């Protein structure tokens, strides 16, 4: 791999950049791999990278039906945080934060991880209680958390409305080391680094079936033919139900659609990430200057990657309530992604009842920030054939046993998580 650096950039500038090589190869699939990862999104690519890097398993293929990083890693609101209440989530996401901090250097690809702080606004006393409870848990778990008064929040986000609003701001829970990252770069960086370690990235190749004999998976049928594998890990986000149906499994998952949007780019106007549960909105500003924001899912099952207007209206309304000055900015582009909403709002990283078939699914709204930790733990689960300690509560059978991890506490209504 040709190292990226300011020097290589300067050297190549002299040649009008005509000597850069491809970031990853586009090989034809081999007949068999040690591990096949189905799904070339952020999680699949990260898994392949950590399989190679941490477990020395390099005879790996990532099979992607479209283009690498074309799923939710291409269409999220870029927020990175680990401000979770439940233990089963907290340490997992905090591992993610550790990985995020060094990710650009580790991958030799600038993913622009920007720990500019994530503030959850509390709009009433009950929320102050709940957020302080969460903040205290975070601190006792060793995760950074600060309580911010309204004045402190105002200082960090001067354009935020805190008083002249229907639900005034009472304060906020800040995770100072949370922030944003450049979403596409995460996928590309992992792909390039995995490629460098020998992983084959097979794009435009759709998995059409799973070959399972005597309860063990032997490989996958694809649009490029059968590809054998000793182990198969599936990380296909919004298409989990479909892919596992090929293995005869029904999942505690529904596929829903989440829209996000950006304003036209403006000069810096918001230097942190603001989220408001009461207003159903989260917002940050990209380095390019666009306000990036989103809210609730569309509530009905969908595989469409395109939503409808009521939610757009709702999210924009919430955003303008939080930032009345942004009312004059213009909404430039909206889009949708499909997400696998699990029945308790928490992901699943686990073995399956089928030998050598592994599942990584159910990411709900939270897949992007989890990318490194998810890849890390899933790689471990596949390599060691047992869950990693950090994801040991993200088991598939937790619904059956009652050990659900329900941060929001809304129960088995996936569209409410």
């Amino acid at each position, binding site marked *: 791999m040709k190292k990226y650096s300011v020097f290589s950039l300067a050297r190549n500038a002299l040649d009008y950049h005509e000597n850069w090589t491809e970031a*990853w190869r586009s090989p034809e699939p081999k007949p068999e791999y040690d591990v096949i990862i189905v799904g070339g999104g952020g999680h699949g690519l990260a898994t392949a990278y950590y399989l190679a890097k941490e477990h020395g398993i390099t005879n790996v293929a990532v099979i992607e039906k479209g283009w690498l990083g074309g799923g939710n890693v291409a269409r999220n609101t870029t927020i990175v945080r680990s401000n979770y209440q439940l233990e089963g989530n907290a340490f997992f996401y905090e591992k993610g934060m550790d990985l995020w901090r060094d990710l650009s250097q580790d991958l030799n690809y600038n993913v622009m991880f920007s720990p500019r702080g994530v503030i959850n606004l509390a709009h009433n006393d009950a929320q102050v209680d709940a957020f302080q409870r969460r903040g205290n848990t975070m601190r006792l778990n*060793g995760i950074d958390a600060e309580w911010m008064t309204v004045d402190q929040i105002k200082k960090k986000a001067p354009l935020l409305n805190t008083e002249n609003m*229907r639900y005034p701001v009472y304060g906020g829970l800040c995770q100072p080391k949370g922030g944003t990252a450049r979403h596409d770069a995460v996928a*590309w960086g992992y792909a390039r680094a995995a490629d460098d370690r020998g992983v084959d990235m097979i794009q435009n190749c759709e998995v059409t079936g799973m070959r399972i004999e005597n309860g063990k998976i032997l490989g996958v049928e694809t649009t490029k033919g059968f590809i054998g594998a000793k182990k198969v890990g599936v990380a296909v986000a919004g298409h989990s139900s479909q892919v596992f149906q090929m293995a005869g499994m029904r999942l505690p998952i529904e596929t829903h659609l989440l829209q996000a949007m950006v304003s036209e*780019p403006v000069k810096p106007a918001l230097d942190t990430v603001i989220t408001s549960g009461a207003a159903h909105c989260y917002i940050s500003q990209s380095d390019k200057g666009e306000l990036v924001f989103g809210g609730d899912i569309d509530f009905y099952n969908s595989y469409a990657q395109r939503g409808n207007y009521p939610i757009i209206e709702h999210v924009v309304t919430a955003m303008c309530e939080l930032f009345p000055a942004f009312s004059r900015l213009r909404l430039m582009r909206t889009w949708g992604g499909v997400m696998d909403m699990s029945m308790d709002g928490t992901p699943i990283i686990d073995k399956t009842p089928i030998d050598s078939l592994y599942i990584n699914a159910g990411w709900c709204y939270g897949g992007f920030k989890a990318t490194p930790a998810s890849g890390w733990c899933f790689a471990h689960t596949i390599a060691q054939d047992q869950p990693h300690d950090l994801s040991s509560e993200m088991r598939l059978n937790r619904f059956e046993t009652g*050990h659900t991890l329900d941060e929001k506490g809304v129960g088995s209504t996936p569209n409410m998580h």
Partner: protein
Amino acid sequence: MSRSYRTPEGGRIDRSKLLNFTFDGKAYTGFQGDTLASALLANGVKLIARSFKYHRPRGIMSAGPEEPCGMIQLREGNRTEPNIRATQVELFDGLQASSQNRWPSVKWDINSINNLFNRMLPAGFYYKTFMWPKAMWMTYEEVIRHAAGMGRSADLPDPDRYEHMHAYCDVLVAGGGPAGLMAAKSAAESGARVILVDEHPELGGHLRGRKSKVGAKDAMDWVAGVRAELEAMEDVTILSRTTVASYYDHNMLVLNEHTGDHLPTAEGWTPRQRNWKVWAKQVVLATGSIERPLVFGNNDVPGVMLTNAIQTYANQYGVTPGNNAVIFTNNDSAYEAVLDMHDAGIRVAAVVDNRKVETAATATVRERGIPVFHNHVVFNVNGNKHGVKSVEVMALNEAGDHVAGSIIKLECDVLGMSGGWTPTVHLFSQSRGKLKWNEELTTFVPSESFQQERSAGACNATWGLNGCLKEGAKAGAEAAKAAGFVGAKAASAPKSDDHGMGDIRAMWRVPQPPHTHLKRFVDFQDDVATSDVELAVREGYTSIEHAKRYTTLGMGTDQGKTSNVNGLAIVSEELDKPIPEVGHTTFRPPYTAVTMGAITGTERGHHFSPIRRSPLHDWHLNAGATMVPAGMWMRAQYYQHPGEGMWDAIYRETLNVRNNVGLFDVSPLGKIDVQGPDAAEFLNRCYINGFGKLAVGKCRYGVMLREDGMIFDDGTTSRFSENHFMMTTTTAKAGPVMQHLEYLLDVEWPELNVHVVSVTEEWCGMAVAGPNSRELLSRITDADVSDEAIPFMGVTEVDICGVPGRIYRISFSGELAYEVGVPSDWGTHVWSQLMEKGADMGVAPYGTEAMGIMRIEKGHVVGAELNGRTTADDLGFGPMTSSKKAFIGQHAIGKPAFLETDRKQLTGLKSVDGKTKIPRGAQIVADPAGRIPMEQLGEVTANCYSPSMKEFIGLAIVKNGRERKGEKLWAYSPLTNEKCQVELVSPHMYDPEGEKVRG
């Protein structure tokens, strides 16, 4: 400098109405009917912006919404707006605009240094660098953020008014050009309800900028005639200055109407913008087309324009963007423009046409003595921030892939380019219509429709006027027919001229001489040049989506209206793959950016969410209550007396209940009337405890579970007769519980004969609580209120203060207490009577804070304990759970996790030293000095100072909490650096035996 670029006459402007405006502080004038762009051009202002990345000088390129370069900051103060396309701003008197993305000025912009280093800044350069030293990224980022970003946001709340409108129609026509007008006319004549939408103030589409004839008439006279005809019809709505922004499922479209943007300020009741949500049975898309730039060296110099833009400025605005033009084209459409320019007094130095063969159009130009260079290209523009100085022209080789021969230098001050036309298929594509590549026309055209729509005219790649009129008429009739107007006929289209585009010679990148590296821009706004697209492909970003994201091609505020086709064609050439295989990126709503305020409409400030007011709302306000939102409701938090602090008031209110009598407004509690022969059975299935045997005249506390076994809600339910109950819910869950009951009756148990009706609003509820409550009650009703007549958990219907009401003997405070319900319109009357009749005994209202303290003292559970992760057993309701009947959630109770012994259970807390406050939101730990990460045994769910018990108390859910009574642990809040040693006690801390409530 001050010479005018205005033609002596002509144009569709009102020369009698002179308008003053400023740009970058300098005063200029224009006319009514100008856009800011035409007015600036008329004043000879060429440089108006700096580009996104390299801060190159930019001017105006187009005359419409596709403008990628000419963006400005409009208005000032709290009405300022960034990134406004000067081509879309209607000039008004007093308009203030300024350039953006420059410092200190658009002429001397410090960041234009980026252009010198542009070789260091290829596509995606930031992915390759800024990684060292690691800690520096945030510093680099700050510099990058300030360099990026174009215009600036206002920093004050938006003062303008925005509204919404909802409408249904048979046929919506998007676009008021020739095709759209004929479509609207045909559909309307059939009797269909028609909405015709056009983004410009004037209908006519491209006709506005041309000198076409329709029949014998000047085209714009014909437009006016059709408009008048349509306006006279009852069921036609014409919305001009309105953009069809988005096309959603089932023919739901969003329109953005600019009701006040053309005014100095939209004042009073006039909304600035209005968003329409329209459900159309059928849609005709007549959205026209956009001219494509050609991709050659330095094609971004101010003064390089789309050919039709020059034509439009000349014809519509009487403005000549230059005196001496060169036109560079690959198709016939530019020739008509050349003639118009010539008519307007612009000298046309030459037409450079990359096609080898002369067409009929060529002759029309030659007749005027204008030289035409065939098989030649403009490969470079010489110029700077002051504009174009000259262009360099070379011949093409036989294959057309290289330039050959010698350089011809042509002096000029404006260059028109025409790379063919791109149908505006955005809405078609948003509607899920499939696009097909047409090699002959070198563009994507609509093929299969998905929704109830059809395309007509230029957006369907029908170029000639005659064709557009006919196709529009036919589409309108078809749409009306499909909407049920079976007799619809295509209105007859007047014969008109029919210039097309002729054959087009695609040339996605204009070749340049060997060893030259001129910047050839593809996406002007985001500074994406051919070299960037080539680099992306070279580096393996070969999917069109990868190429777009890596280079940011088409991701600017114009969303690639002029750049997308050129971009994907270059990717296709680089990959040596046909364009259809490369495909196109997704067209996302909206078509042009829409002001957020317009999307928000009226739902701002106190209308963000409706305020729900109790019947006693005004009483609370008059009594000086501090009101606090509780969901949509506003509730009285406490009633502060003069000289009192907040907590003084709260403790006073609490003690007044404990020692005397207090009143609390419980109207927001959810109330659901449950009636029918199966009502008792239904309640039995909903609650964990039994309701079948509840006696008439009694009420009972009940707990509901979800299907997954967690607690859903709680409340008391009263029985008024065999088949008539009233359920109460928590305030927060009133809606969800109602929905849950309706679901069960509609879906799971339709066989049950039960009707549920929300009666929350019918009743004003008042808690009368305290040792003197019975005495007070006896003063407002003649009914017997003795313990025998209304025992604990009894309910009775009586007259209260002369109105029919209900008295429930229930207590949330733990005191002898009642809840009085009267129909809402009489609520204030009864409450006032209670206040008056109890004056001598010191009755006082209490708010949610005092209520909160008393519930903690009694260990009643609320939202923090009912957090969706607690089971009935966790909170101590295990013994209530019936095993004699089936109920929702019963089976889930059997899950293994529910039977584990270390579940978190409800417990009371007392501060061990009696002086230290139990911190809010604290965690329960064994030793706060322990190591992080620290085991957390539980969490504090509520905390307060109990003025009755004179100590700090709280509630918590703690692992195996019931077994741990007497244990001393710590409530620890590292967030606030507070800790308190606590003893775990029964949650029933005040009057544990419940003697008072039964008193």
